[in-house]
């Protein structure tokens, strides 16, 4: 039956494109045995890089969650923004999706780099942006910006403003209404957005590579370290770090699917 053919073909594609590569990462890390693997990830530069990735993920997810929810609320509910303006802002939100990460990094270097007005201003004040953590955070903020906004907006539109209006007639002001009425409805959308943002900031590569300068033990993240290892033909070490990242990603993937289910139930 045609059915069987399509299903088999599907399985083949999945195995070749997704499953086999994933397995290879797992097996490749052990090419030099258990000790090789441990050595690869406990190198000082590996630990530092993992820490940098961790910091970026936490900061970026935190900021973009808060600002993302707020912006989504303004774009859907606020009446002080005209309809035309809202549509314009709405399309602007999607911009980072269209921008190649390398270009994203370039933009930040061009505006805030050591050769620019703003850049030197901050540097004189002792606060380096480009080729330092702040620049890397900015680059990742840019790239992950649309994710939370795009998750929360449709939910807000679907639940409608009436419950919030009802709350206002019962004497509740904005903050109380948000926590008691709005939040329970958008909760799962936000959680899904958080998982997406974490996954994306964890995996950000191009933009961070450009902005950070990839200085070992200073501005290297896990992904740029993998890149460096591959360029230096240190494949086993690269594999090891990649494995850690892949393990996190698979975990995040599971969280993603779980949150997606909960999002749709209500």
């Amino acid at each position, binding site marked *: 039956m045609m059915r069987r053919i*399509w299903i088999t073909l599907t399985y083949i594609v999945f195995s070749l494109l997704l499953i086999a590569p994933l397995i290879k990462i797992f097996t490749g890390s052990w090419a030099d045995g258990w000790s090789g693997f441990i050595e690869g990830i406990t190198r000082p530069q590996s630990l530092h890089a993992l820490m940098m990735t961790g910091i970026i993920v936490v900061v970026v997810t935190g900021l973009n969650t808060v600002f993302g929810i707020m912006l989504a609320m303004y774009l859907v509910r606020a009446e002080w923004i005209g309809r035309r303006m809202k549509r314009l802002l709405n399309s*602007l939100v*999607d911009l980072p999706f269209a921008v*190649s990460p390398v*270009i994203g990094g370039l933009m930040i270097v061009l505006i805030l780099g050591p050769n620019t007005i703003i850049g030197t201003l901050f540097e004189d004040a002792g606060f380096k942006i480009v080729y330092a953590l702040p620049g890397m955070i900015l680059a990742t903020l840019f790239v992950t910006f649309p994710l939370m906004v795009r998750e929360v907006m449709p939910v807000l539109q679907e639940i409608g403003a009436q419950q919030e209006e009802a709350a*206002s007639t019962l004497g509740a002001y*904005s903050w109380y209404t948000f926590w008691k009425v709005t939040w329970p409805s958008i909760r799962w959308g936000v959680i899904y957005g958080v998982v997406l943002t974490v996954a994306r900031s964890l995996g950000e590569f191009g933009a961070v590579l450009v902005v950070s300068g990839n200085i070992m033990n200073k501005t290297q993240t896990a992904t740029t370290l993998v890149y460096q290892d591959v360029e230096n033909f240190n494949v086993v070490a690269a594999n090891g770090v990649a494995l850690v990242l892949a393990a996190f990603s698979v975990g995040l993937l599971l969280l993603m699917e779980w949150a997606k289910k909960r999002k749709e139930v209500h």
Partner: protein
Amino acid sequence: MNALFRGKGWSFGFRSAIMLYFVILIVLPIVGIYTQSFSLGWTPFWESVSDPLAWKAVLLTVKLAIIATVLNMFLGTMIGWVLIRYRFPGRRLLNSLVDLPFALPTAVGGLMILLLLGPNSLVGGLAERLGIEIVFHEPAIIVAMLFVTFPFVIRAIQPLLEEMDKSEEEAAYTLGATRAKTFFSVIFPTMLPGIMSGAMLAFSRALAEFGAVVLVAGNIPGKTLIASVYIFGEIESSNPQGAAAVSVLLLTLSFLILWTVNLIQGRRSDQ
């Protein structure tokens, strides 16, 4: 006046902060790159853009992105169809796996492809003996692009297939149409907007991809150097202005695609 925003706590300052965040983070950089690339004037811009390596890179990127997108359209349609319409063991697992490229860092994806298809691997060794070169050549770039854009078409057509009214199909059958005819005249047109918008998103993403490609491409100028890697190269060679010029080219192309997708989706929601 929306009731949620009246009263204490929501001041003008709060609104401004959010808007400022938005503008500074998104609008400013993009405006910045457009102005910077023309900062030295039109001639240097033109020079950077007409450098043979530059436009060869852009052309290569477009060509390979198109191939990857077309492949994606076929594969994605088939897989989306299978995952929604058929019930078989492992279906839910495969459905979840579709999102893997969204969850995985692109650099890790690139490494995976390198390991799997590189000269030291099973597949790579086999291919080399057959005379087909994968890694460090165009095919590897296509595979990388395929990997990162894998979910787009699938996730775009799945909701359409789910929403589709079974009675349309059944009506066709009762009128005597074969399964094939029904597929092409009833089902396919329903899926088409999803395939198109998924393809455009995939194309846009493939154009922009860096991480997965840079590891497997070999990046030989004129041969396997795609636009984003070229731009990266110019930055590393302290030619930010040249990098900005080519970026503007790529950006404008991506924005046009994004705008088209918005139009298509806008029209669909009006229906």
